Structure formats: C-alpha cells, structure tokens
C-alpha cells in the first residue's frame, strides 16, 4: 500500500493545527492589549474554581434543563474526543483501530462513545428547538440578530454532522467486520450498541463500495473536526477552551467589592497630605503616559475583562436576570460582552493591517458600541455576575466605563451631579447639614 494517504493525512492535520495555533496566538495578542491586573494570588482557590465551575459545570445546573443538556454535550465532546487519538494514530501510521488490542476495554469505550453520540444528538435537537421552535426569550432578543443567531445554529449543525458521521463510520465498519470470512483489514473489534441498527442500510451494496463509503466517512469526520476546531475563533464556541483560564483568573473577592483605582489613591493622598508642596512641579518622567481614568475603549480595560469578552458564549443568562433589561431598558449585560469582543476584534484587525501598530480609527467602545444610556441603566446588583456559568463580569466593564464618563467627561446625568455635589458639600447625597446628622435622636 502506498503512503500517499498517510502523507495527505499528515498535511491536513498540520494545516488544521497550524491555522488553529495562528488563531490562538492572535487571541492571546489581543487579550494582552488590555491593562495589567494581578490575578495570580491564591492559586488554590483558583484551581478549585476552575475544577468546580469549568470542569465540573457547577453553575450550569442553576438552570436544570439547559444545565443537564449541556453536561451531556460536554461529556460527549470530551469522551468522544478520546476516539480522536485513535483516529490520528490510524491516519498517520496507516493502522486500523489501533487500540483494538485493549479487548473488552475497547469494546466498552466504543460502546460508550456510541451511546454518548446519540445522547448528544438528542441534546442538540433540544437546544435547536429552544432556539428555533420554542424561541426562548433570551435566544431571540435583539442582541443576537444576524451572525450570532446563525453562529449558534451552525454549531448545532456541526455537532449533528460530526456525530452522524461517527455513527455511519462505525456502522459501515461493522458491516465489513461481519462479512463472512472477514474482509480486508476490518478485524472484529468494538461493540456497537447504536450503529448495529444503522448497519443494515449497507445491505445489498458491494463490499468495495461499503469500504469506500467507510473510508469516506472516516475522512470527512476527521476533516470536519479540524474545520470545527478552526471555526472556534470566529464563533462564540470559543468558550469550550477559554472557560478554563477564564474561571481560573476570575475575581475572587466579594462580589460587592469594586476595585479602588490606584491612580486616584495617589492623587487623593497628595491632596490630603498637609506636607505636600502645592507649588511643586509634577515629577518629570518623559515616558509617562498621562493616565486616563476609567475606560472608553478596549485598551483601557484589563486583560481579564478582555478574556471575559472572548469567553462569552452568548447564553444570555446574565441578560435574562438583569433587572434593567427585565423592565425594558436598553442595557443587556450580554451585549456589553459581545460589544467588547467585537471592538477588540476590530482593533486587532486594525493592528494586523498596520504592521503591528494600532492606527486610531476615530471609533471607540464607548458610543460606537456601548451607549451611555445602557451604562446608566445598571443598578450594580451583581445578578449578571452571579448568573454567568463561567464567571464573567459584565459589571466591571460597566463600572470602568462609568468612571470614564464621570471623571474624564463630567458626563453624569444631572441628578447624579447634584447627588455628588451634596456629598462634597455636606457629606450626604441629599442636601442636609452634616451638623444635623444626630437630630433623629431627639425627634
């Protein structure tokens, strides 16, 4: 037998993985456009979070129906991919079912892959119905118009095609295994609780044709997997990889604790220092970039917030629990994450087109993607953060953008300006004299 097949397979594999790593590098580069934040403390708690939330899917089951369906697809994906190892070895070395020597273990493995494949098909059908027939509110909202809606369906179609090919591959293989006296390299191996019922469709076809079909299914299946892997970068489906680092680097503090801006602390301390010389010249550092308070574009956000944006799989649990969104306001935490990712992609493409340098494009995350109206509708209630199955914080982005609006642009709504003036003047958000603070005692 010629080695042409194996060489072709090696080339396809190399292209598939090569292109995938180029995408991963690009994501890494884009995420690193964000400002620095230290999330390396307390590794024990971080590993625990990753194990429980990403690996263990603990937050998914807060909504049991979607949670359990998701776990089926997730386990199916992870387990069936063990089969991928055999496929790659077979493809590279021209072997057939190289792990067949495992005997009973092999039979159990193949049988469980088949059962999982069917369960995945059932779950995928349920997911598809929820989006296209039942039309759950969070899947038909305006956030998802256009590409995001198609993307979600394409992922489901991909899964159907891959699972079907896997089962057809096994069915045709089984058909040839059952040829009296044996046929070619199709040794008796594996147990086929599902594809044994598909196998009869090959009755009446010549063995040569079935072998051709079997090899065809095998090739289309592995090429399909490689295409799907490379599709990730263009899709919300990236979460299957990024959920892991995202849960590891997620905030560990109490959800109510918002960060204190260090740049502000320095200035406030200087203001309150009685020994500070009011006429002293600012310290001269020719390389210092004047610091900006808050965020108006993706480069002002920290890298964890950008990782959050790439991790978001647009499930919309955040938005469906958002009090502002629930009462018809424009704010949608999911849209905050999608906008951040889309703008980051735009900035990344700008850098690619300009030989590694970002050329200002007169656009920004604020206004061109996210409007002030959305930002001011937030009650900072943390429902979105609590809901997110992979610990994304839309709230932290909203707060950083409010900071920019208030501290850089003095663009707070009028009543908030009045509230802040009161705090400055009399130490309360309302216009009461601080000297009257204890009057309640005698009223």
């Amino acid at each position, binding site marked *: 037998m010629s080695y042409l097949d194996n060489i072709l397979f090696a080339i396809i594999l190399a292209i598939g993985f090569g292109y995938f790593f180029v995408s991963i590098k690009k994501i890494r580069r884009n995420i690193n456009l964000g400002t620095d934040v230290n999330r390396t403390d307390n590794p024990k708690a971080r590993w625990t979070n990753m194990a429980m939330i990403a690996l263990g899917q603990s937050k998914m089951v807060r909504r049991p129906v979607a949670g359990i369906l998701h776990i089926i697809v997730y386990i199916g994906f992870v387990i069936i991919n063990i089969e991928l190892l055999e496929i790659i070895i077979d493809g590279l070395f021209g072997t057939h079912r190289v792990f067949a020597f495992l005997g009973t273990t092999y039979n159990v493995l193949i049988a469980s892959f088949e059962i999982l494949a069917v369960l995945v098909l059932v779950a995928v059908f349920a997911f598809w119905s929820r989006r296209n027939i039942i039309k759950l509110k969070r899947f038909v909202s305006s956030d998802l118009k256009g590409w995001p809606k198609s993307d979600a369906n394409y992922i489901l179609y991909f899964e159907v095609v891959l699972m079907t090919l896997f089962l057809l591959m096994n069915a045709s293989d089984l058909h040839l295994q059952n040829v009296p006296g044996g046929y070619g390299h199709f040794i008796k191996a594996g147990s086929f609780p599902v594809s044994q019922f598909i196998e009869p469709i090959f009755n009446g076809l010549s063995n040569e044709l079935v072998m051709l079909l079997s090899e065809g299914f095998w090739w289309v299946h592995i090429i399909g997997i490689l295409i799907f892997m490379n599709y990730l970068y263009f899709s919300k489906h990236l979460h299957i990889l990024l959920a892991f680092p995202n849960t590891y680097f997620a905030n560990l*503090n*109490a*959800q*109510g*604790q*918002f960060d*204190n*801006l260090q740049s*502000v*602390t320095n200035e*406030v*301390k200087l*203001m*309150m220092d009685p020994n500070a010389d009011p006429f002293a010249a600012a310290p001269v550092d020719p390389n210092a970039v004047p610091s900006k*308070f*808050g965020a108006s574009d993706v480069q002002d956000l920290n890298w964890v917030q950008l990782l959050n944006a790439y991790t978001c799989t647009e499930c919309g649990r955040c938005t469906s*629990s958002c*009090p*502002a969104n*629930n*009462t*018809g*306001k*424009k704010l949608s935490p999911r849209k905050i994450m999608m906008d951040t990712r889309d703008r980051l992609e735009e900035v990344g493409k700008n850098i690619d087109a300009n030989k590694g340098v970002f050329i200002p494009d007169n656009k920004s995350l604020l206004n061109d993607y996210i409007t002030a*109206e959305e930002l*001011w*509708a*937030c*009650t*900072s*209630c*943390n*429902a979105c953060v*609590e809901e997110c199955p992979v610990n994304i914080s839309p709230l932290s982005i909203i*707060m950083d953008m*409010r*900071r920019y609006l*208030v*501290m850089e642009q003095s663009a*707070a*709504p009028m*009543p*908030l300006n*009045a*509230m*802040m003036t009161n*705090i400055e003047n009399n*130490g*309360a*958000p309302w216009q*009461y004299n601080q*000297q*009257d*603070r*204890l*009057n*309640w*005692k*005698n*009223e």
Partner: protein
Amino acid sequence: MSENLIVPTMAEMLAQGKQPEVLFWVGCAGSFDDRAKKITKAFVRILNRSNVSFAVLGTEESCTGDPAKRAGNEFLFQMQAMMNIEVLNGYEAKKIVTACPHCFNTLKNEYPELGGQYEVIHHTEFLKSLLDDGRLTIEGGQFKGKRITFHDPCYLGRANNVYEAPRDLITKLDAALVEMKRSKANGLCCGAGGAQMFKDAENGDKEINIERTEDALETAPDIIAAGCPFCNTMMTDGIKNKERESDVKVMDIAELIANAQDL
C-alpha cells in the same frame, strides 16, 4: 415626641475614657430619611434594651462614598473614604455595625485597602448574635402566623453572601417565612442600587421596584421585610403604587424585632 433613647457619641465615650463594644454607623439614609430614621431608632431601642455598649459618630459621620463610587466618581469616593478612615482610626474603632447594606459593603470591602481595617457587620447579623448569646430574647406572638417575605438587598446577599441571618430572625418571630420566586442569590434588585436611587430610571416599560413588588405580592404576604433603607423606600413606593398599603406593610428586620418586644 420624646423617648429616652440613649445614643452616646464616640467623642463622649472618648472623653470618659471608654471604648464601646461596637460603633453604630448610622448612614445618610438612617440619619436623614424620615422612613429610615424609624429603622435607626428601632435598632437603637433594641441596643438599649440589650444593654449593648455602643456609640455613633454623630456629626463626625459622613457619607461612605458608596453612591459616588457606583456612579463612577472614584475621586469623590476616595476623598470620603480617607476622611472617614481618619475619623474612625482616630477613635480606634474595631467593630462597626450598620443597618445599611451599602455602607456595610463599602466599609467592609473597600475601606481596608485605603487603610481602614474593621470588623464590619450588618445589623441583622448583629441582632442574630445578640439572640444566640442570650442577650436578646424574642417572644413571638405578635407575628405568630403572619406571612413575612424577605427581600434580599443586593449588597447584603449577592455582594456579601449574607442570606441566613435575616431569615433566622424572621423564623424566631414565629412568623411564616414565605420566599419569593426570585430569592437569595437569584433575588431581583429593588432598583435603587448603583446610585439609581438618586436619578430617574432610563426609558423602559416598567419600573424595577414595581416588578419586584409584584414578586413580593405573589407570596400573599402580610409583611415585606427588608434589610436596607433604600430597598425599604423602593418596596414602600411599590406597595403604594399597587394601592396595597392597607394590608401589606414594608418593615425592616430591626423594626420587626423591636415591635415583637413592644419597644
């Protein structure tokens, strides 16, 4: 109306060379808002009855800066925080109790980094500890069989994971604690947080407090219990909007306890 509330200030305590067991942070709402002042007084009555040695900052207290921070004004927040920390550290405050979850969250979580390290507890947790230590006893009766639903304040619940203390207190009243469909970690905001209290809501098709009031009314409650002066305002407004003031009361946990004791 004169009742004999004993409310020493930290300055008076210091003059006598004394350090109270706990500093009661009253907060802006608790000091100035007519409805919230009643909560403040109810809490003080319980403290007086239980012989808790406490003191307030009085006119030395100033806004924690919470609404400024949530509105995005980090400068104003940190100015307020540093001034308050100077006062608190001046009195060597160790333990702070407050009836406002916003003050609670800010003092507990955001002051330490700026130099203010205190043990901060919410008044429902403090009341619970008084009960557990036997310093406070509740004779049920008045609330026996009443249906009480508890609205979780975001800055107490999700923000700081305090869900049980207020519920334990309601159960101690012999009342029937009924949960809303969205409660605890799934609780819906009253609409006041994130500085929303001080501005009009953005355009939408409903006010958040109405949505939340509907959640509460679904439980057919006699009383909606709150643990936050702002939630209290929002839910009270919601009840008024629904014209249910005559049969549904909005009360703070401290008021429930004080009433049970006939204080």
